[in-house]
């Protein structure tokens, strides 16, 4: 039989080794399959583990899809430097979508796609909205009631312009235009 200590080690290791959160059932039918164990007993083990990690850099949390270890919330900002390489540049597709929204607003995704001749990825629309540059101002009264997108005040503020009409017109390239333009996809 398995000792209490071994049992705790096994559950702990299984949760750490799993790529996704692990449910009680997954543990019972997986690593614990050979040790007839009931749920209340496993719950106890998990409670103990949660307690063990209370003061540690990672903690055992129960999320919607099961248990997982995650880094302590307060450490987030300090840990963020591990991934804070310079943000990649926005793709041409994203900027063109943004320009089209600015120009043709209020506009549906279908209308943007009609002009660009390619589908606009959900990721691009999400990025633009998360950035606060684009928002939904209504829905078009056609089948499917597609969202109508428009630019925001934050968008104007970011580019320090009063209105989208202030976006420099064609034929007046500034010196910054000559910069390298092979933007990376975000």
């Amino acid at each position, binding site marked *: 039989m398995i000792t209490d200590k071994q049992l705790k080690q096994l559950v702990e*290791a299984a949760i*750490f*080794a799993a790529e996704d959160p692990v449910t009680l059932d997954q543990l019972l039918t997986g690593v614990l399959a050979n040790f007839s164990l009931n749920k209340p007993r496993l719950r106890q083990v998990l409670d103990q583990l949660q307690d063990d990690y209370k003061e540690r850099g*990672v903690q055992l949390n129960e999320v919607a899809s099961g248990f*997982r*270890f*995650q*880094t302590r*919330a307060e*450490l*987030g*900002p*300090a*840990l*963020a*430097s*591990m*991934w*804070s390489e310079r*943000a*990649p*540049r*926005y793709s*041409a597709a994203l*900027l*063109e979508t*943004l*320009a089209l929204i*600015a*120009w*043709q*607003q*209020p506009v549906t995704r279908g209308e943007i796609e009609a*002009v*660009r*001749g390619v589908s606009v990825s959900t990721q691009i629309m999400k990025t633009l909205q998360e950035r606060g540059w684009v*928002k939904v*101002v*209504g*829905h078009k*009264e056609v089948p499917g*009631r597609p969202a*109508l997108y*428009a*630019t925001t005040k934050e968008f104007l503020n*970011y*580019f320090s312009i009063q*209105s*989208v*009409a202030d*976006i*420099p*017109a*064609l034929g007046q*390239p*500034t010196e*910054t*235009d000559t910069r390298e*333009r092979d933007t990376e996809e*975000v």
Partner: protein
Amino acid sequence: MNSSLETLEQRDLAAEQSLQEQHSLPLGFVRGEPVLERPDDLYIPPEALELMLEAFSGPMDLLLYLIRRQKMDILDLPILDITRQYMAYVELMRELHLELAADYLVMAAILAEIKSRLLLPKPPSEEDDEEDPRAELIRRLREYEVIREGARQLDEQPQQDRDYFIASAATDARDIAGQTPPEVSLADLSLALSRVMQLVRVQAHHHIQREALSTRERMSAILERLSQVERCDFVSLFEPAEGKAGVVVSFLAVLELNKEGLIVLTQAEAYSVIYVTRAGAERVLEEGVA
């Protein structure tokens, strides 16, 4: 795993047969077939031979097996015996048209050559000078044996996802890191705008009016306002402080919104208040009134 191990152990070479060979061999298939138990009986069922050859990683491996089976040292390479046995296996492979044979044939040629040199009578005077014709093969066998043993030891090392797993924790830090979005210059935006304008120009063949920009923007502002209030007074859409130009922009925006069917203008009677509602909202309003 256990039953297949036992099967292998019957093969009198358990001590030297390496672990990884067991892995590559579909042992369940063999079912205790005494494939290598009868060294002198060269009858081997074709499918068993195929499996057996799969167990050997090449001619060197087969040679080493033949030597070990005779409990001989590589240094005493009994070339006549080994060559005879090796040729028998190769002959079987050829009969079975096994694809593996090519590399095995090269070794067969080497063995045959050594054998012939050993059998050739030598003038006694030269006997001391001439190198043992087996020397090169012995050297290669020893070198190969190191590699085979190294591979076996490597396989016994703790391996990821077999003997140990990487322990990792989820983190929200990555999302925090992702919160510094890329910078965009106004010039970049201008260039993107000129690209899409060009696209539209090519598609529509109509004149592109940049002036329309502010009208479109005003349309958005009106729509947004109408998403917050059910309806509003037409007059309230105009901001006198904006001056004449601003009023014109607002007026154009209302006309355009109306044309595109995005708003509905209602007026109970002449000269009464004109109300502006979102298209689709009027039904809700009427229901509310009724």
